[in-house]
């Protein structure tokens, strides 16, 4: 009985030491994932048919990369807050807004938007602020946002 009690104390002691090491070294504060490269060089053009052409440059070779989220709202602050309500959903109603395969090289990405968030119509004369982020399909998180730019729907 005495020996058993003595034997039990060794794993407890070892666990305490490992736990102390774990916290002392800030391992617990590591980011969950490496950050994705943010898209840049956003260009927005409105067509005469109430569509918005979106173009940007990207290089996302990360394993977790699943596509791009497009945020759009009628004020810059609403977009920068990256609320889910201002993020376009894909055809399945989820994220990312636009699925995309991983990149092997820097590339120019192009999309055409026909609706706003929650399928809101792009009314003629309305001004939208738009930005794009890369989407991490493993953690469900975004990269930093690229530029935020306004466009007026024709």
């Amino acid at each position: 009985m005495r020996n058993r009690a003595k034997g039990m104390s060794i794993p407890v002691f070892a666990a305490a030491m490992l736990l102390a090491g774990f916290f002392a070294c800030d391992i617990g504060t590591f980011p969950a994932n490496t950050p994705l490269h943010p898209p840049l060089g956003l260009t927005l053009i409105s067509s005469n048919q109430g569509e918005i052409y979106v173009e940007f440059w990207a290089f996302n070779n990360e394993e977790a990369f699943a596509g791009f989220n497009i945020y759009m709202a009628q004020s810059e602050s609403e977009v920068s807050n990256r609320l889910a309500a201002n993020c376009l959903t894909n055809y399945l109603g989820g994220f990312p807004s636009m699925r995309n395969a991983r990149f092997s090289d820097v590339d120019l990405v192009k999309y055409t938007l026909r609706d706003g968030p929650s399928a809101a119509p792009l009314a003629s004369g309305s001004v939208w602020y738009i930005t794009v982020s890369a989407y991490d399909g493993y953690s469900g998180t975004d990269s930093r946002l690229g530029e935020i730019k306004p466009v007026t729907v024709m």
Partner: protein
Amino acid sequence: MSYRVCVLLIAALSLWTSCGIQSFEDLADLNPPLALKATVVNGEIVLEFLSYNYEKNFSGFNVFIGTDSSHVRSQSKVIPNIRTDSVPTFAMLTNFARPTEVTLVISREYQSYEPLQSMNVMFWIGVSAYDAVYRQNSKCTDPQLVDMRLPP
């Protein structure tokens, strides 16, 4: 008693080695500069691009040239800084906390300096972000063709 000493040593060793682990963010690739435009103005090459290099290891930009765009993509020929004769081509004292339009000028004096001296009048050019701590380049921008014969 010997068990306790053994466990203590193992625990101390794991503590010591785990403190040397670098954070994932340090080891992540730098964000590549994007949307490069290269123009020739009065014999100088003007490079305009977008950078979002908030990383703490970011130390500047390297400029790569080549007779073929693939040479630029493979980052085989870098232009060293003419003053320091080392990389990065353009050292930056601060990083960019937000997406920033950057303009860099390769002055005329570089034309008599390797590797620019050995280029023809037309060549390809690209820019990468540079991490001086790990001596790593980001992916290069999309290569652009430069024609030194174009009038200003």
